[in-house]
């Protein structure tokens, strides 16, 4: 992996940005009403006041992320001294709010507590793209830093001009520009109050502005707490599901009995007779809104029994993997190296990964409000501008008439890219002429949100006489291209992603297909090591040239005492390794499992992980992301699996779909490797990718039976 230095001096990790928007099919609502009808439905109303300079985005851009049009779009200096930084990213628990605040504060020469961060309000902030693909750190952080550094330079230039002194006669000290010789100082408020401040901030953000060097950092690189942390522990923070508007109703949506079912008829009369209840049917969409959720549920119950549906045959989880193979586009590709196997040792295996759910603790929620034909929606999403586009399309509006506000929300993990709930709330609010809050039930979230794609992965490799990989053939069916390439040095390789027909609606997830591809590749590496008669660590190192990947693997091997533990003669203990790289960061893990042969079960005793993502920006937040990623990964490896049949999800509850809890946490030994010489890469995703394979390899080590499907089940005990 190379890094290149663009203008501005921040090295950029050299990897392809996946377009996550392409991966999920958006719900095709069309609520085309004329503007006149809006006025009729809503009457006159007040616009939501916008207190900051609007027109933050470049106009005319669709789908892309234009970033800040000018300095004013990124930073607002208040005449009272308040400093507001604007960014299009969202906070769903991954730490963007703290780290972006740190980025701005560092360059402005201020403590983090002096900077207000406004995130993800489409009427105020620049379009910095969706919050996914670990993109906030490598792309938005530098952009915010450049903006803040430019503002700092403006203050310095302003002060020097006013004082008629040279630039090297002044310095930044605690948020002030100070001329020590004359004991004068000036603040950002002085700049804001100057006559030409507005004009100065109309300039575009310079790309070559000098940034604070890592070794001089005071705010970045430190464990700054999330700025609204106190509001979290007091319950004062308003999540999307907590937003309340005057006169607001609570909504419910009618759901089809199965995927693919179409509504033929429904009798709305029983609900329409209820006092204070609003009932909407718009083609396939049926919903109700009422003064409280119970009334809305009752109203929905009264009409849901009157429905007639047509259904179409749907695949089931029992036949899932055959289904994916049968529907692979162009068939399952043959190994192009099959003719070169003469005399070589060849291993061919198939790996299976089921559908799983993100199950964020806050289900999809949205509050929609119409005023004068303009729509405001507060919702939990990773993709504010894309959701605005969904609403613009569904309601035939212009961008300027839709405002999306994303309050810090109850987690996403790649599962909240789409606007279903926002669309439904908006349609209900439109009919009601009042704001409507819609919060999906847990069953709805488990059923009608999208899933992490299932995968069938075919891997075949041949070993040369020296036990090195001569040919490598690796095919991912259905789940995606992330990490389908191998990071190992192999003779000849053919790595491909082949789309199939998804059995369920699927989309992004934490690290997406890198989870499935690392699982298959790293388990396969252990199978190859066994075929070569080599230790899994030595086998990997013999095929590794990337120094960063080598470094995390060697770190984990040392900290875990791989060499000592792998030789231990306790037949109930197994140890496994895995390593990988994704989104510009590097990870290795070692796992120890304990097998209970009588119960035919196992327990994860210990996980050791080494993680390196360049220069660490906030060690406390990074540790949270790594620990959380490891434990979330344990859930997917141990138990999680969506079961479905006849278009219905069979385990759509936390009772039937058990996610990790406190007692699933093993002894965790996390090593964060700081590399001040390297660009910072995102860290929300990559720590998860090695957990399932390391666990599977540990079970393989203990039992001698390879684990080739998730969740890990004991076969050979």
């Amino acid at each position, binding site marked *: 992996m190379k890094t290149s230095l663009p203008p501005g001096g921040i090295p950029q990790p050299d990897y392809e940005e996946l377009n996550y928007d392409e991966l999920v099919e958006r719900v095709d609502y069309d609520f085309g009403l004329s503007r006149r009808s809006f006025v009729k439905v809503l009457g006159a109303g007040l616009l939501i006041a916008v207190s900051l300079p609007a027109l933050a985005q470049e106009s005319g851009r669709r789908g892309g992320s234009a970033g800040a049009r000018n300095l004013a779009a990124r930073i607002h200096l208040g005449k009272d001294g308040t400093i507001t930084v604007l960014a299009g990213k969202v906070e769903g628990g991954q730490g963007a709010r703290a780290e972006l605040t740190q980025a701005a504060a560092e360059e402005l020469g201020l403590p983090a507590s002096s900077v207000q961060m406004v995130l993800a309000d489409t009427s105020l902030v620049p379009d910095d793209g969706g919050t996914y693909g670990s993109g906030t750190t490598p792309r938005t952080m530098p952009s915010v830093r450049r903006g803040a550094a430019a503002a700092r330079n403006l203050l310095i230039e302003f002060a020097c001009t006013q004082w008629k002194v040279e630039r090297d006669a002044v310095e930044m000290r605690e948020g002030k520009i100070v001329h020590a010789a004359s004991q004068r100082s000036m603040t950002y408020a002085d700049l804001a109050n100057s006559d030409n401040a507005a004009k100065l901030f109309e300039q575009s953000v310079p790309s070559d502005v000098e940034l604070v060097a890592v070794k001089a950092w005071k705010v970045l690189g430190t464990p700054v707490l999330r700025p609204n942390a106190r509001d979290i*522990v007091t319950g004062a923070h308003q999540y999307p599901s907590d937003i309340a508007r005057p006169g607001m109703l609570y909504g419910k949506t009618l759901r089809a009995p199965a995927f693919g079912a179409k509504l033929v008829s429904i009798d709305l009369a029983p609900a329409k007779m209820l006092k204070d209840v609003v009932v909407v049917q718009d083609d396939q969409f049926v919903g109700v809104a009422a003064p409280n959720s119970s009334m809305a549920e009752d109203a929905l119950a009264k009409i849901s029994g009157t429905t007639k549906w047509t259904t179409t045959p749907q695949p089931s989880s029992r036949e899932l993997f055959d289904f994916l193979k049968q529907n692979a586009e162009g068939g399952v590709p043959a190994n192009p190296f099959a003719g070169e196997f003469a005399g070589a040792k060849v291993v061919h295996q198939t790996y299976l990964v089921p559908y799983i759910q993100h199950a964020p603790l806050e289900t999809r929620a949205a509050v929609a409000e119409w005023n004068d034909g303009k729509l405001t929606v507060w919702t939990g999403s990773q993709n504010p501008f894309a959701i605005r586009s969904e609403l613009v399309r569904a309601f035939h509006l212009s961008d300027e008439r839709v405002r999306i506000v994303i309050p*810090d929300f109850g987690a996403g*993990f790649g599962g909240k890219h789409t606007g279903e709930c926002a669309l439904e709330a908006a349609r209900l609010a439109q009919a009601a002429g009042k704001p409507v809050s819609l919060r999906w039930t847990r069953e709805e979230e488990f059923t009608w949100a999208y899933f992490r794609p299932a995968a069938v992965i075919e891997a075949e490799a041949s070993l040369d006489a020296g036990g090195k990989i001569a040919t490598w053939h690796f095919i991912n069916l259905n789940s995606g291209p992330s990490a389908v390439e191998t990071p190992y040095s192999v003779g000849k390789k053919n790595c491909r992603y082949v789309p199939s027909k998804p059995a369920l609606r699927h989309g992004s997830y934490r690290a997406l297909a890198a989870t499935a591809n690392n699982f298959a590749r790293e388990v396969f590496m252990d199978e190859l090591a066994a075929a070569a008669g080599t230790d899994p660590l030595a086998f990997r190192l013999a095929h590794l040239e990337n120094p960063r990947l080598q470094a995390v693997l060697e770190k984990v091997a040392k900290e875990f005492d791989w060499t000592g533990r792998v030789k231990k003669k306790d037949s109930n203990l197994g140890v496994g390794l895995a390593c990988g790289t994704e989104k510009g960061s590097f990870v290795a893990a070692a796992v120890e499992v304990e097998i209970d042969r009588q119960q035919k079960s196992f327990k994860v005793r210990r996980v050791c992980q080494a993680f390196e993502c360049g220069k660490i920006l906030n060690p406390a937040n990074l540790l*949270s992301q790594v620990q959380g990623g490891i434990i979330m990964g344990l859930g997917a490896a141990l138990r999680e699996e969506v079961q479905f049949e006849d278009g219905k999800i069979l385990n759509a509850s936390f009772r039937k779909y058990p996610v990790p*809890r*406190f007692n699933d*946490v093993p002894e965790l030994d996390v090593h964060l490797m700081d590399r001040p010489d390297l660009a910072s890469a995102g860290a929300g995703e990559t720590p998860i990718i090695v957990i399932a394979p390391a666990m599977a390899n540990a079970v393989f080590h203990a039992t001698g039976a390879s684990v080739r499907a998730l969740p890990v089940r004991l076969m050979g005990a």
Partner: protein
Amino acid sequence: MENKISFTLNGKARSVTTDPQRSLLEVLREDLHLTGTKFGCGEGQCRACTVLVNGESTASCITSIGDVDKQEVTTIEGLADGDKLHPVQAAFLAEGAFQCGYCTAGMVMGVVGALKENPKASETEVMAKMQKHICRCCSYVKYSKAINRALAQPGKGHA
């Protein structure tokens, strides 16, 4: 059918006239505008909705409002003493224990409930009760540290 239900909420007398079968969670959030208590699953499986009823940690999503008639209810909004955080809140804040924070109010109430039940409860006893709580960000390591920190603080069991 509506009933008048009177109860003590965060130390103050409150009454609501509503369908007694509505959940305590819904009435807290929609009628009384106390949104610190969260909906997570609606079936008592995740405990994001934990409140104290007569000091006992309770899933408000599966408790009906009628059931708290004449009872004493404490929500996350009732824990702090003005600007002074409850020791359990302070411990969670000091550790930066949460990620998205959506489960935090329920976690805090769960720990306070466990300590109210037994102010001398050991870490093992408290953690056994916290097994009912889900954190989907899986911030369990830092939550465990925060709980340990809370156990070491004076006044931890009051509410």
